[in-house]
């Protein structure tokens, strides 16, 4: 059973006289066969977390359990974990076959024939059977990454750890391998912890996402939960591209008063807010719609500053009619809608799509409504 539990895991690096907390009291429970993506900005401690699970970094406090067994003191070579590195980390003097067989030689008591069969099987799965006799230097980036993955799956470990394995590839190859990795993980059904800074990879690949910031775990949830029900402002801003728009507002009775606009709230939203007055209003670009000529409580007149056509949709940088230039927010509208810079348009921010965050702590106090 490949369950993996992180219980209050903390990593402290000494720094001169003081110390730096790289990972702060992280709790994650992964069930057998789960694909968990750990995501966050660079320096947030996600790689350190992964390296602690691998045993390449010591654990300052807390406990890591693999299949229910505490592994804090177990050396990496005895953890039954395979890891794929960003740089592929292939052994340059060995052929692809030797690279893949290396992990099977010493720790296991497999016969040469069995090793050969398993390497051949794994090579078949990864589509690199015809490369077995080549050296890493003769392979392309995509092929090297396949070999690195093959080297991991041939061991048939309890857990796969992947440290930004796709970030050295070009965009097209990356999305290709992304799909393939998902299929592979689904097929092998091995617990996988996948570290990335790319929120697209996080959204598309994982069963669940764990979002880290400054060493602290922000939220662990399914991709859609993270998207629609972010636990706090950081998650809301990190997940989604283009990111969510935020406006600082002050609650005055039943109205949110911003620098450039007033936004009246209805009863149910007000219940969520409680007695907090200092708030941040968040709304995703795709939830802002063109209102035409109609006017209502939640429509605002704006000026278009920049339009970035993407084909299927336009990313539009808007500013409130009386706001200074440069203070923009983003809306995405359909690709066929005619919008050009300088236009004055009216947009609607529907109340059921807004998120509200505590202005000081950043905690979500109200998330958007979802039609079931």
């Amino acid at each position: 059973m490949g369950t993996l539990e992180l219980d209050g895991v903390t990593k402290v690096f000494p720094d001169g006289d003081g110390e730096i907390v790289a990972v702060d009291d992280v709790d994650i429970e992964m069930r057998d066969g789960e694909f968990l993506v750990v995501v966050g900005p660079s320096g947030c401690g996600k790689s350190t977390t992964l390296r602690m699970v691998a045993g390449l970094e010591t654990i300052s406090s807390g406990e890591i359990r693999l299949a229910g067994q505490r592994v804090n003191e177990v050396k990496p070579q005895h953890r039954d974990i395979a890891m794929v590195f960003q740089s592929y980390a292939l052994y340059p003097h060995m052929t692809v076959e030797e690279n893949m067989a290396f992990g099977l030689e010493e720790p296991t008591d497999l016969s040469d024939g069995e090793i050969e069969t398993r390497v051949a099987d794994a090579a078949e799965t990864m589509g690199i059977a015809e490369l077995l006799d080549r050296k890493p230097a003769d392979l392309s980036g995509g092929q090297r990454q396949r070999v690195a993955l093959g080297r991991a799956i041939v061991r048939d470990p309890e857990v796969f750890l992947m440290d930004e394995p796709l970030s050295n590839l070009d965009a097209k190859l990356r999305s290709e391998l992304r799909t393939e990795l998902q299929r592979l993980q689904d097929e092998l059904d091995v617990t996988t912890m996948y570290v990335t800074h790319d929120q697209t990879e996080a959204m598309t690949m994982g069963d669940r996402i764990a979002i880290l910031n400054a060493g602290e775990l922000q939220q662990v949830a399914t991709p859609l939960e993270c998207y629609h029900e972010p636990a706090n402002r950081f998650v809301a801003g990190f997940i989604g591209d283009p990111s969510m728009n935020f406006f600082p507002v002050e609650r005055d009775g039943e109205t949110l008063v911003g620098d450039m606009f007033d936004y009246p709230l209805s009863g149910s939203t007000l219940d969520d807010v409680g007695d907090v007055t200092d708030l941040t209003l968040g709304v995703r670009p795709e939830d802002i719609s063109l209102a035409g000529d109609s006017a209502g409580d939640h429509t605002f007149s704006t000026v278009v500053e920049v339009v970035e056509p993407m084909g299927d949709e336009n990313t539009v940088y808007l500013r409130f009619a009386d706001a200074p230039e440069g203070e923009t927010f983003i809306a995405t509208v359909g690709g066929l809608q005619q919008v050009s810079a300088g236009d004055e348009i009216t947009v609607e921010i529907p109340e059921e799509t807004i998120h509200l965050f505590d202005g000081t702590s950043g905690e979500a106090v109200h998330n958007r409504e979802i039609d079931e």
Partner: protein
Amino acid sequence: MSNDARTDGGTVTEAGPGASAGLLSGLDAYRVLLYLGLLGMLSFFLIPIESGLVTSFKTASGVSGSLPFAPPTGGTFTFEKWRAAFDALGRGLINSALYAIPATVISALLGSFTAYGLTQSNWKQKYKAPVLALLVAGVFIPYQAVLVPLSQFWSMIPLQEWLGFLWALGINNDYASVIELIITHVAYGLPICTVLFRSYYKNMSDEMIEAARLDGASIRRIYRRIVLPLSGPMFAVVLIYQFTQIWNDLLFTLVLVQTESSAAAPIVLILAGLGTSLEGQDFALRMAGAFIAALPTLAVYIAFGEEFAEGVAT
């Protein structure tokens, strides 16, 4: 080189349609000066070697009767000096090889082990740092400073008694000094070997070593299967450097072997006295001897040249 040629070709085609015009335009004053300068340096370095070589084939009258760099003519040409030098130095060649080869190989291997421990192992930095500091300090200890302690040290070690079984086999007990030379040169060469290997291992991919650890390899197996096979270029550098140092060293042999009459006398010790007598110096014999003594180091350079270039480049 090939890049240069290509840029030259470029200027030729740009300069004009005629090939001869192109050639002339390439021959500007700068190039002429450059080639003259290079030629001058070439002869500066080659003339002493050429002089030594031609002198070694001259009879005594040839040496005194002609310019040093003039080749020998019919009557003054002889192989006699080479034969005599070889007779005198033959046993020295073997004796030198007896300690130079083991000392070179052992110091390179130990240096590689030590550097591996200082870089890739997960010892704490606070334990590595003092060891490294000691080794770096060791690089800068001059030979002269250790001569007296060295002879004191070996006079305290009852090596002659310990090796009694060898003398019983009929081996001359002068050969104890070969063992002393091996150990001394290994100890003296270890710091520089370690420092050289350390810089090489520092540049090795950490992720690759970590991948091997996760692949279940022990620290010993990682060295044997990953680090050692990838150390080839640095071994070439260290082997050439150490072999040349040890083979050419005279000071330690003077202290530990002392006299060329010893059965274990290395080639440098015999060479020092070769061709000098009360009647004067036999320059031709000395030149022939010098060439014979230098040949092994030349052979090592040629043997490891390609890897050497690669190792120096990294």
